[in-house]
């Protein structure tokens, strides 16, 4: 009945049954892979976030080119090389980067708190800081998209499941298309459709009776567009999982419900949904994580003037001209912490269930 139950009962069996040595060799490859691909990168990112590059040694130079000569400054590479040899990790900064304006901005927040006369003023001052601006969109996106995509995925799964065998395959294929399309390509296509000269853009102007209405110029409409895209793109994932789950609904229970005179809605509400609940938890877990890292639609929709996310900040910091590795590492650590906080209720519940069983 509970897919979550399966691994637990297995491990209970393997504990006393399997010899410790056998278990060790059995688990070793997985442990090694986890160490190399999960633990090591996290350690590296945390380390990087605590150090910043050396102070730049600048020298004045004369730069000449087609427009004549000018005096400018360049980085003294030899002096920098010496500094690097002395301290290969750079300057130790501790939590300095975490607290600076690009991240938690503690000084700016405190300042806004003392200087603001109302909560509204304080909130708008906070919204001006990159980290909190990104968080406000990221959290809205995560908590709007996740339930909507679960609901939509469930409805599609029910609908496809009730189709006749002949067209089922075709419908499954079409329902999966949004997930097959590369996120960046999908959002770019939608970006041009919602352009004020695009198909959807013109339709919205016609419906609103306002020829100057532009979706891309309005922050609320841009948020809605990105959220709609997010639901469209991720609903197929929920659909596939729920569709698979629907194949395991016990037919006996359904039949008894029908004999008892349950309507179609009552069958869904009291038999199908309770049966699929563990899968809902699973989809919610995966999608909360995915949506918290929203990135492609922001780039595809060119939406950074209206909406940013932590992933977008990392991407922006790593851009060639700025190359702020420490800032990007710090935002990565904050993302990991954010995902952990987001998943904690679900993880705590799973842990309780496990303890309850043991």
């Amino acid at each position: 009945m509970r897919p979550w139950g399966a691994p637990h009962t297995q491990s209970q069996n393997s504990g006393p049954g399997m010899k410790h040595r056998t278990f060790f060799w059995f688990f070793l490859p997985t442990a090694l892979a986890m160490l190399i691909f999960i633990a090591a990168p996290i350690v590296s990112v945390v380390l990087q976030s605590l150090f910043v590059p050396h102070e730049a040694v600048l020298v004045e130079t004369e730069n000449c080119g087609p427009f004549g000569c000018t005096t400018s400054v360049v980085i003294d590479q030899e002096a920098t090389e010496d500094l690097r040899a002395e301290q290969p990790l750079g300057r130790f900064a501790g939590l300095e980067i975490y607290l600076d304006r690009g991240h938690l901005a503690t000084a700016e927040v405190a300042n806004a708190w003392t200087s603001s006369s109302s909560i509204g003023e304080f909130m708008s001052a906070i919204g001006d800081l990159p980290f909190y601006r990104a968080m406000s969109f990221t959290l809205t996106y995560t908590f709007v998209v996740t339930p909507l995509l679960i609901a939509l995925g469930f409805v599609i799964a029910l609908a496809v499941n009730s189709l006749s065998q002949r067209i089922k395959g075709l419908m499954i294929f079409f329902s999966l298309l949004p997930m097959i399309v590369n996120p960046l390509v999908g959002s770019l296509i939608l970006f041009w459709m919602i352009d004020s000269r695009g198909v959807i853009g013109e339709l919205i102007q016609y419906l609103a009776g306002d020829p100057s209405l532009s979706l891309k110029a309005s922050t609320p409409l841009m948020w809605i567009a990105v959220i709609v895209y997010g639901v469209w793109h991720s609903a197929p994932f929920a659909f596939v999982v729920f569709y698979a789950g629907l194949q395991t609904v016990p037919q006996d229970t359904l039949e008894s419900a029908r004999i008892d005179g349950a309507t179609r809605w009552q069958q869904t509400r009291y038999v199908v949904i309770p049966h699929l609940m563990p899968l809902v938890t699973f989809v919610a877990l995966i999608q909360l994580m995915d949506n918290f890292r929203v990135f492609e639609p922001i780039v595809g929709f060119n939406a950074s003037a209206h909406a940013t996310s932590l992933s977008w900040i990392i991407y922006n910091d790593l851009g060639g001209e700025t190359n702020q590795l420490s800032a990007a590492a710090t935002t990565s650590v904050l993302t990991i912490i954010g995902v952990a906080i987001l998943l904690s209720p679900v993880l705590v519940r799973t842990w309780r269930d496990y303890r309850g069983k043991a």
Partner: protein
Amino acid sequence: MLMKKTLLAGALSLMAGSAYAECGIESGRISIIGNEFPAIQTVGAGALECASDKVEAKSNLTADHQKLNVAGMSGNPAEYTTAIIANSSIVALMNGDLIRPLDDLVAKHGDGLTKNQLITIDGKVMAVAFMANAQHLVYRKDILEKVGAEPPKTYEDMIAIADKIRKEGIMENPVGGAYAAGWNLAQEFNNMFLGYGGEFFKPGTAEPNVNSEAGIKALETMKALSEYMNPDFLTHDSNATNAEYRAGNVALMNMWGSRAATLTSAEGVPQEVIDGFAIAGPMTVGGGNTPASTLWWDGWTVAKNISDEDAEATFIAMKKAIDPAILQDPEVAIQAVWLLEGYKPTEAAKGVYDAAGMKTIPYPTFPYMGLMHTALGNELTDFMQGKESAEQALKDVEAAYTAAAKEKGFL
């Protein structure tokens, strides 16, 4: 049949032989990263002609080149053996110590390069420039005639003409502007800021200096211009702005010389847009004499973290790609203001030539300018949407820049 095949094989091997002889590269690897505008496409294709059995050559020409070149040249050996860059983007490569001095290669293979082309920093040749660039006015002479206006010399004129065009119902949004959030928006600010006589940094330091009278005036002018732009302007980069011009929706815009010359040669451009297409020099603003624009060169560099053999192969191939002989093709000649021997300015070069003649300021080359540019690109969007004041936006820019510059060790 067999005869034909043998002949063909012979011809092909001859061609390969001649290509080999022309470039004179024995072996090596050439890998190019650069922007994607027409002149760079020509240079990239020219260098790829040096490919042979023993010379591996490939190119990656993309608008995202600045996001890729530093990472792609940091490894050892570097993925890219050459980056085609401009005076702004050479800074990131210099900061990372990723490009090599070219003095020895210039001495050995540099015949025909003029002194003008050699970019020297601290007495060492670090890049070879092949074209000059600037943003300048591109307009529709037919539309301007309709409203009885001369091509604008100042941004104030531009706004007045735009207002006339809108009032007469010819176009709803007659001004085009590459105001996309990020690099483009910041660049338009730079233009306007320099036009108002602003200085980005306090003299002799890396301290920001944009929250000034010049900064506020620059933002106010940009806001006034944006009233006459397509409301989606914060998502329009130079490609999208050109598309608006081609579609006949725009009558006045500040556009790159490197993209303007070939603007109307795309497919499907209406005849009146082709006929009305005209170019003029950059505009001034606020009664100043310095154009609200910046002067640029584009050139190529050679990676530091590659073998001397690959560096030599790359130098030879890139030099061949900018051989003055390429100017014999009239389509190539109009693509840019070439800094090559024997280049005669075409009609399309007028904008960039005027920019140079009017003493437009070259884009600043301070090692921390990239951080300033990025801070501007991110923090000015709230002001452009009317969500905050110019002072607040510039305060945010300085705060964002300061945080980044502290991290990078400039402050």
